[in-house]
């Protein structure tokens, strides 16, 4: 069983400051996306339950996104191999471009199961998984909250808006996962060390038969501004009773208590 897990290096959103309503992205640390960690954990559990198989983590990233570290973290969690697609001047334009590159990487690597996060931490478009599936011509199952291996395929329990659905599909199939599927493991120091020795292949666009024109954006972001917030920032000190008292008094004064 050949499992590909697609992991993106996401900016640490908690570190993004807003300045004049603009997000300051300079010097922001990057890390494995939350949902991608869920996908990796799901892959590990599937592989281990099946008693064999290979997990390859695939990442497309601009050079400055600390992608190798991301991949090493995933290898430390338990992926077997990693593929990084990058290029010095690469600027990944949009989800269609990302999907094209990832699909080519998948073709090069070979696959039975393609695992994605339901959305990436920063964009959360949910586009990349379905687009990759379409390019490769494989069926897809979104929002998995449980994946079990079957003979030659998977059974997926997925969480839709109002329903739980159980679906079955033979390989190859693409699956995106939601966060309740599992609690991703935190790699131990020893596994982090060992991860350094696991294979990590680096491809350029040319290695995948693509070039800069393959990643041209099909859309433009006209503006990206924070909504304005003006808050009072009043803190109540003292013991819990005093804090409670002050808080309730403030609410009374605001007139938000009672009807």
């Amino acid at each position, binding site marked *: 069983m050949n499992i590909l897990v697609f992991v993106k290096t996401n900016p640490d959103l908690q570190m993004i*400051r807003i*300045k004049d309503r603009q997000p300051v992205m300079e*010097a922001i*640390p990057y890390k494995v996306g939350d949902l991608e960690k869920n996908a990796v954990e799901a892959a590990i559990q599937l592989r281990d339950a099946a008693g064999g198989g290979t997990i390859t983590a695939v990442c497309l990233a601009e050079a400055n996104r*600390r992608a*190798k*570290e991301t991949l090493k973290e995933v290898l430390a969690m338990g992926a077997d191999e990693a593929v990084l697609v990058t290029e010095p001047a690469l600027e990944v334009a949009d989800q269609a471009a990302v999907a094209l590159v990832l699909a080519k990487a998948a073709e090069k690597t070979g696959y039975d199961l393609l695992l994605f996060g339901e959305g990436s931490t920063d964009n959360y478009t949910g586009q990349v998984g379905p687009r990759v599936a379409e390019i490769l011509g494989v069926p897809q199952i979104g929002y998995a909250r449980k994946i079990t291996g079957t003979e030659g395929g998977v059974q997926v329990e997925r969480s839709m808006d109002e329903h739980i659905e159980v679906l079955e599909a033979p390989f190859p199939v693409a699956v995106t996962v939601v966060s309740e599927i599992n609690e991703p493991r935190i790699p*131990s*120091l*020893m596994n*982090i*060390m060992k991860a*350094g020795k696991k294979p990590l292949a680096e491809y350029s666009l040319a290695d995948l038969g693509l070039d800069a024109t393959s990643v041209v954006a099909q859309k433009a972001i006209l503006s990206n501004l924070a909504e304005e917030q003006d808050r009072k920032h009043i803190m109540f000190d003292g013991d819990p009773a005093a804090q409670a008292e002050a808080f309730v008094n403030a609410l009374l004064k605001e007139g938000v208590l009672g009807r």
Partner: protein
Amino acid sequence: MEKVDCIIVGGGLAGLSAAYGLASEGLEVIVIERGDYSGAKNVTGGRLYVSPIRDLYPELWKAAPFERPVTREFVTLMGDGAHTTIELASERFATPAYQSYTVLRARFDQWFADQVMEKGGMVITKNRVDDLLLEGGKVIGIRAGGDDIGADVTIIAEGVLGLLSSKAGLREEPRPQDHALGYKEIIELPPGVIQDRWHLNEGEGAAHLFMGGVTRGLMGGGFLYTNKDSISLGIVVGMEAMRQAPDKVDSYTLLDEFKELPQIKPLVEGGTIVEYSAHAIAEGGIAKVPKLYGDGYLLAGDTAGLSLNALVTVRGMDFAIASGYYAARAVIDAKERDDFTAASLAQYEQSLRSSFVLKDLETARYIPHTIENPRLFTHYPQAVSNLMEQVFTIGPGPSKKLSSTVMGGVRKDFLNLQTLKELYAMRKI
């Protein structure tokens, strides 16, 4: 037990510098850093002297993410009711290669960690080393999160308090009298405003130090460094002085008070605080440098007491980088001999002795003692400002001759027994 050539405890500048040297020579090295990433919690005032270390890793400094080269020096002596600012604009400082740059550690250390990884070194973050593993007095590795990892040599670069190394008996427990506390804020300001306020050309930077009233007469001072689009503003106060202060000062309020001073307020006007931090600084000087090596280990950077507070300059980052460099050299040579005993690693101390690191610390041997004199932080800044004030005063009656104004002030505040004694004591620094 899994084993590597070298484990480095702490991914600050000392640890990263050692790792870079070792990885460049192909040794298997892992840096273990407890922060989310290198630089996440590391505190510095903000100025790295590159001149002393330029030749150690010449390729590194060309692409390093410095903020601004320091081309202008300001010193403000703060008196009550008057203060004096000296501005030094030296053409030499404004010509490359620059002797010092302002830096922001979050950015700088992360970049440095990347360089280490480029060379094949491993930087493991979000992991804390819990213990050093000792066997018959020899350090044989570390324990972290339940995993034991062995190493031929462990370089301990855990920063100023040196808790692991003291716990393992490799150095003394930290004492308050040998430390100062630094409180610092990073305040965002537009580059144009920064250049206007400190008379800079685009891209150039200033260092601005404050002596006198900043710290209520406690040993210490204030510093301000200009970054690309922010300033690093802070104060440094002696821990012991603070403990013994007549009226107990809440250390946090010192920085707030400092910013409210009429001399400082216009400098930070309109800025947004984006980061606050506090950190200890070693000030014991050479007298407090512990034994730097032993069987299977080396101490580097602040852990080794390698920092210098010489009133107008705080240095530690250059020492940290240099000590990491020499530590790496020593380990590389020891590896060649396949001998990691104290005798083999003694080379480390020798290199530090023949380099600027221990030489500069030796030169500054008497500074820690001298700056314990509170008058340096009270009397002198006031006296200079008083004198300057008199020089520029034209009163209602006839003015005195300039020379007698000056001599009067000098006689009153400088030519007395105590001052002369102090000046005599200062000859050593």
